């Protein structure tokens, strides 16, 4: 079940490498804030991220609550051609997950 709003993924060729930039839609709640009634807002954050290129893993990560809200990520890998598929997948602390894809421009 994909939840929330789509990520913005940009993948572009840079020499013999592909540069990927991702903007994700997520509250990344630390679990330390309180709401207007003084109740603690429970932690809710992306814990695992994986990026693949034509099915091959090019990055994987574990995140904690200190990654900023609406996370941004940028990385590069060797290879890639116009039209190749980049897939980004995350799982959060509620067990929700989301996959979005883009093609290399």
């Amino acid at each position, binding site marked *: *079940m994909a939840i929330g709003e789509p990520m913005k993924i940009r993948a572009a060729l840079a020499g013999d*490498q592909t540069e990927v930039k991702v903007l994700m839609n997520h509250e*990344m709640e*630390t679990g*330390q804030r309180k709401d207007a009634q003084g109740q603690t807002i429970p932690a809710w954050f992306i*814990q*695992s991220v*994986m990026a*693949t290129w*034509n*099915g*091959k*893993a*090019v*990055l*994987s*990560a*574990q*995140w*904690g*609550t*200190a*990654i*900023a*809200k609406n*996370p*941004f*990520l*940028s*990385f*590069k*890998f*060797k*290879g890639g051609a116009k039209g190749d*598929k980049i*897939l980004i*997948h995350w*799982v*959060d*602390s509620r*067990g*929700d*997950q989301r*996959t979005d894809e883009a093609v290399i421009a």
Partner: protein
Amino acid sequence: MDRGRRKALKSGGGLTLATLLAAAGWLPPGRAQAEGWNKSAFEAHSLGESVKALGGSDPVQSKDIEFFQTPEIAENGAVVPVGVTSRIPKTESIAILIEKNPNMLAAVFDIPPGTEPALSTRVKMAQTSNVYALVKADGRYYVAAKEIKVTLGGCGG
């Protein structure tokens, strides 16, 4: 997943998304947290504890780890850009830790062969603090530090 996409992924390289996810230990929705998430590492309070929880020890200071596009002063601690690049051969992972945050470890990135050991993201900082970039390369740990000042903002912008 619709059949068309599944077919496309299958023909894309032999590995379906489902296989990849299963191999990485991702869970179907509804479970409490991502499997394989290193809880003890993310709850450690010191550099030593964090490295130990990540499976290493005694990181060596290295000039071959650099911060890029990482400002010295953050106008707001909610969003602080941090970029790390490692020139150490066989870099396998890069972790970002923030000394004065309630929990030090912000993120660990695993770098497969072919991926550049350089990435950037944005972190939250509770206050002015040292930011550590911890690199695992060829089974050993290396570290570099940079102080980032966090300011209390004015009202505008």
